[in-house]
């Protein structure tokens, strides 16, 4: 039996200590909180549901990051702005419809018009991004498209600021999603229910598209090996454009779901959800589609439940101000124990 040399890896030891400490802190905090009995089961339920609703929006945006990463091994940092442009353009449609009165007489049709605007605009922006900013750099070192992405993100943000100003705008009320749904065992806002169902529907659709269609198969092939895929007669450029388009459509729909929950649009609104969604994608294992969905949900739930569960017990004042700290601590934890994310694969490139 060959003796395995035992080596103490100092860095790993430190990381595991930090990780273990964080987990202990969270577990002990949760015990203290639950002992306090401050929150009713209904309150926990509403935190979780709000978290799932927010998480599904993150997941939809995260899919855009992950799809592009899966194929090009680049992080499209301008994806948050694709989301913002969808929300903004749809605001103009919604405001216009509201002025014409169609919003009141036919809210369902108006809603789908607004949704279509967001999806189409986001898709067009994503395709243009690929064509103008990324394709010319396809063969360049990895850092180059990354920096271009950050630049593109700034250009998109400040173009929106130039066109639409820096104020906050509120969506007109569709009057469709007000109210509470009582399922007996579960009470949740109708808007939350619609957001969750829509997000699940879109993700299932994407899953079937990737796994059951010719284009989907081609996307998987390109993701595995671009050169071999090209030899097999796959038009790699077209597949890449398709990937960006799908990411854009998902971001556009996420934008509408987000505004259903939060109702406000402004030129900087893409930044934070973009960062959060990127975190979700990394959390789930970047490049992995189911991973992005899981990562989004975990992040959303942790943001809502985490501060109240982990910190209330320690009597920390204003725990909810620390929700981002919790979200990113979880990212750190996952990266310590599973450097490739929850469902990630080891990179071969």
């Amino acid at each position, binding site marked *: 039996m060959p003796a395995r040399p035992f080596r103490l890896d100092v860095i790993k030891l430190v990381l595991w200590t930090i990780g273990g400490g964080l987990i202990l802190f969270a577990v002990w905090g949760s015990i203290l909180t639950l002992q306090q009995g*401050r*929150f*009713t089961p*209904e*309150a926990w339920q*509403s*935190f979780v549901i*709000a978290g799932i609703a*927010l998480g599904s929006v993150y997941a939809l945006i995260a899919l855009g990051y992950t799809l592009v990463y899966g194929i090009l091994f680049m992080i499209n940092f301008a994806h948050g702005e694709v989301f913002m442009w969808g929300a903004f353009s749809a605001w103009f449609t919604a405001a216009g419809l509201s002025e014409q009165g169609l919003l009141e007489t036919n809210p369902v049709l108006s809603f789908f018009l607004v949704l279509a605007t967001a999806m189409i605009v986001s898709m067009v922006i994503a395709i243009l991004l690929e064509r103008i900013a990324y394709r010319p750099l396809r063969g360049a070192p990895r850092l180059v498209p990354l920096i271009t992405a950050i630049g593109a993100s700034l250009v998109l943000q400040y173009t929106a600021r130039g066109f639409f*100003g*820096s*104020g*906050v*705008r*509120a969506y007109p*009320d569709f009057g469709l999603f007000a109210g509470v749904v009582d399922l007996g065992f579960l*009470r949740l*806002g109708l808007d939350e229910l619609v957001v969750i169902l829509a997000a699940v529907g879109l993700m299932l659709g994407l899953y079937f598209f990737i796994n059951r269609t010719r284009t989907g198969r081609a996307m998987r092939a390109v993701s595995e090996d671009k050169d071999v895929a090209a030899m097999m007669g796959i038009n790699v450029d077209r597949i890449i454009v398709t990937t960006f388009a799908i990411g854009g459509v998902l971001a556009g729909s996420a934008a509408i779901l987000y505004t259903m*929950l*939060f*109702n*406000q649009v*402004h030129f900087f609104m893409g930044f*934070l959800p973009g960062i959060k969604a990127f975190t979700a994608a990394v959390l789930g294992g970047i490049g992995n589609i189911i991973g992005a969905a899981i990562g989004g949900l975990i992040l959303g739930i942790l*943001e*809502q*439940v985490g*501060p*109240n569960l982990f910190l*209330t017990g320690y009597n920390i*004042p*204003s*725990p*909810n*101000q620390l*929700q*981002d700290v919790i979200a990113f601590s979880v990212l750190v934890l996952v990266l310590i124990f599973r450097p490739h994310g929850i469902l990630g694969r080891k990179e071969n490139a």
Partner: protein
Amino acid sequence: MQKYMRWSAILVVLMLVLAACQDGGGDGSEEPGESTAAASEPAESMGGGSAADCDADEFGCIEIAEGDPLVIGTALVITGANESLGLDSQYGAEVAKQLRPEIAGHTVEFNHQDDGCSTEGGTAAARALLSEENIAGVIGTSCSSAGIPAAEILSAEGILLVSPSNTAPSLTAPETHQDFYARTAHNDSIQGAAMAEFVCDVLGLTSAATIDDGSAYADQLAAVFAAEFQEQCGGTITAEEAISVGDTDFSGVLGNIAADAPEFLYFPIFVAEGALITQQAKDTAGLEDTVLGGADGYFTPDWLAAAGGDAEGHYLSGPDLEFGGDFYEAEFLPAYLEFSGEDTTISVFHAHAFDAYNLLAETIEAVAFTDGGTTYIPRTALKEAFFSTSGYEGLTGTLTCTETGDCADAKISVSQVTDGAFVKIWPEE
């Protein structure tokens, strides 16, 4: 030989450069000489000062050459979610300038900067204004968080900063007051107490929770309210929560507050988060019947539009704008609306900015003197004149400054959102 030539050429160039510098230095050193020569001529003075005052003044004089404009800086939040707050003040100052286009014989020019409603923005705006030499004074900032660093930076250079809308108590508290900082807006130790009185006596509620956004304004106002609410009617504060600027989802913090089911929820924050909390509180189980209230940070139609129907019934405190007299309705408002291009005023501090401009103009003229065509304004004397203002009849009332720069004639009123508009309900006339 060639090498030697090259070196000597470089040497000649260097000498020429040095000589040029010498010339420049020479010009500079002559200047004080010139001005002392001018000083010996009889000084034509408005405030009765002389060049000796400038030397005696710790910060020297603001000097404005004949025919040059007198520049007043503004540092207000003129972009972003809270732009209505800053633009409102800016229009107020513009109206004042329109009615009084000259100060001490010089046309007034504004240098508008954006305070961003943040510490960083206040720092940047103050630094940008420093680059304007001989700035006569600054109207700003809009937000207290911006006011703290701006007051520090400008006071260090002896530049007067007069805020039309900073209300955080710490800005004029003796321990933290910066020498050249004053304000025409009320102090929140008054606003917080007024709101507590309203909630205690008029609404008759006994428990309340507060949310602040970590800004100097919200943090201090929420604390004043909490203390006064406990003191005035023995009310219970169930939670003092905080959120971060830029957050959008508040179900966690609202759920936490709902656990104690307070009767009143007070969140004196700003427009974007204020609107979101207004909406989300209505959807939070346990807060459906809680009365909501805020303050002048989001007392603007922008907030009404963003909060939509959920704003109905909301209570907001702010400065009382029923000034009495005809001037406001007949002259100020039409001019304001022309500048803004809106149908109504967009926030509640325009009159305070108007007063800030005029008070600045009055005191500049009181201390300025001209000498050989140049107008001199000794900085410390200007500050002292400003701080000794007493019984000045302004638009917002009778202004008297304290030693730490509180100049407002503070009158607080509470309005309620009724049918999508702000309706003043307290104090009753």
